[in-house]
């Protein structure tokens, strides 16, 4: 649906995007990930024909952004970082205006306005002035204007930025629900968001493509190992973590045991092994047969945050592996 080849965008003094290539299949949700200033917005602006590329090509639905911009624009719905709203217009009036700009007319236009109002849960503010809407509603009206002409491709620039947690969840659900009908590219610097919404990730940093893969592969890729988090407690209270560690290391298939928080009175270990080599049953049995309690046993999936920091060259915080999944649970 989208094909970008060797795309470069130079401004007067800086190169915002440097020879990046990627492609997006029809119906996918792709997360465009990168720190601030990485070139996400620039790339999206090239895809929406707002900015012309300095070199390289970008095609949307088979149309080149430079050669046939009008064909591309017809097939794209775009939500910029700040929703492009006119404060003096009422919601419905605004959606009608955008619909007309995108080439809708007559009964068709009315039907679409009605549809997007329901789809984006803004029917109750239909007659309110946009300038009076709350941030969450503004974002939803922004999404509504992006899908009004039922475009093949949706490009959303930081759709959840500046929203409160409840609004973030609502917006994410809304985006997910749109996935069936549209190919979606969304940019963000919030990692859990990508893990939750997207199937595919494109990571860029300082204008360069760092990685492009499915979320699952990316997580697995940085470590060929599987790791399990094990929390153990002694029956009578006193239990030395060294002894537990030694016992766990003797379980067949275990490659490495890390003590997560030796200063805490909880005993949490990260047990690493090669994929498919370790049976959780063996591990659990080992703990129980030693006379200890097994309080917790779960997979410590590496969060995308670590992958991201690793790929963009920053140091991952040490506590991150256990901290992130706990927050989500």
């Amino acid at each position, binding site marked *: 649906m989208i094909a970008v080849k060797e795309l470069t965008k130079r*401004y007067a003094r800086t190169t915002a995007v440097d020879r990046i290539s990627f492609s997006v299949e029809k119906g996918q949700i792709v997360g465009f990930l990168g720190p601030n200033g990485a070139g996400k917005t620039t790339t999206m602006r090239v895809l929406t024909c707002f900015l012309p590329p300095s070199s390289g090509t970008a095609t949307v639905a088979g149309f080149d952004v430079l050669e046939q911009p*009008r064909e591309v*624009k*017809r097939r794209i719905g775009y939500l910029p970082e700040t929703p*492009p709203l006119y404060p*003096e217009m009422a919601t419905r009036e605004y959606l009608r205006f955008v619909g*007309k700009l995108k080439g809708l007319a007559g009964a068709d236009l009315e039907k679409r306005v009605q549809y997007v109002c329901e789809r984006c849960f803004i029917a109750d503010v239909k007659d309110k002035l946009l300038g009076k809407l709350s941030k969450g509603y503004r974002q939803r009206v922004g999404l509504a204007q992006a899908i009004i002409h039922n475009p093949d491709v949706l490009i959303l620039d930081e759709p959840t930025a500046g929203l409160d947690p409840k609004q973030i969840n609502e917006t994410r659900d809304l985006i997910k629900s749109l996935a069936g009908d549209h190919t979606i590219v969304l940019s963000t610097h919030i990692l859990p968001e990508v893990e939750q919404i997207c199937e595919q990730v494109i990571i860029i940093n300082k204008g360069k493509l760092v990685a492009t893969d499915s979320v699952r592969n990316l997580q697995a890729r940085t470590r060929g190992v599987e790791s399990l988090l094990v929390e153990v407690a002694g029956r009578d209270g006193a239990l030395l973590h060294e002894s537990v560690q030694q016992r766990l290391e003797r379980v067949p298939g275990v490659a490495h045991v890390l003590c997560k928080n030796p200063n805490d009175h909880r005993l949490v270990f990260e047990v690493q092994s090669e994929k498919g080599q370790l049976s959780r049953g063996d591990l659990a049995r080992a703990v129980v047969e030693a006379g200890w309690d097994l309080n917790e046993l779960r997979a410590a999936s590496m969060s995308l945050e670590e992958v991201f920091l690793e790929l963009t060259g920053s140091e991952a915080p040490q506590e991150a592996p256990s901290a992130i999944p706990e927050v989500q649970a």
Partner: protein
Amino acid sequence: MRNIWTICRKELGSYFVSPIAYLLLTMFALIFGFFFWNILGFFVNEGMEMMMRGESAPMNLNEQIIRPLLSNVSVIGLFFIPMITMRLFAEEKRTGTIELLATSPIRDIEIILGKWFAALILYACLILFTALNFGFLFLYGKPDWKPLLVAYLGLLLQGGLLLAIGTFISTLTRNQIIAGAATFGVCLLLWVIEWVTGFESSTWATVLAYFSVITHFDSFARGVIDSKDLVFYLTGIFLGLFATARSMESLRWRS
């Protein structure tokens, strides 16, 4: 064509939903009303004096009231034009709504023409207020209406030209005040530039004076459609809008 109308409707909406249009209309009506009262009072006094002296010089509503008043309108209009055009593009650039327009399947020129037409319609509303006052002249006297129509055409053309320049300047910045101030400066300069002919008679002075928008209005105010003035205004409008289109295009390559 449909797209031009869509944009134009939206712009008119923002003029008339916000207080901008009403403020401009009120100010214009007040100022013009004062001018009208002034000149009418002068005219009536002159008439009385002549009657007392027993003279009977011909008095003409068109020549003595309508024509000088319309010349005044063309200058007053000069002051209102920056206030009409300054927001056209500067505001869209500041709020980011320009991204919506630029990523919609419409041509730049349709956006520009839509905005310019909306500005022209608001300007036309302003000068139509003068018809209210002139109506009284028709009620109590018998002025010729044909030169008045020609003068209105001239005002529209002159306004169209200055509005095109204002639209162009509005694309250069995201700050409305800068756009307004620059447009005002250019409008003022285009008015006073003909004064060079007062002390200079070189070719350069003539060329400079040619660019004065006000001198080209004189023939229209007299009720004459002079093709050379018509051409001046039309080419001016074309150049202004053309420059706007170029500026919008360069916006994409620069920013």
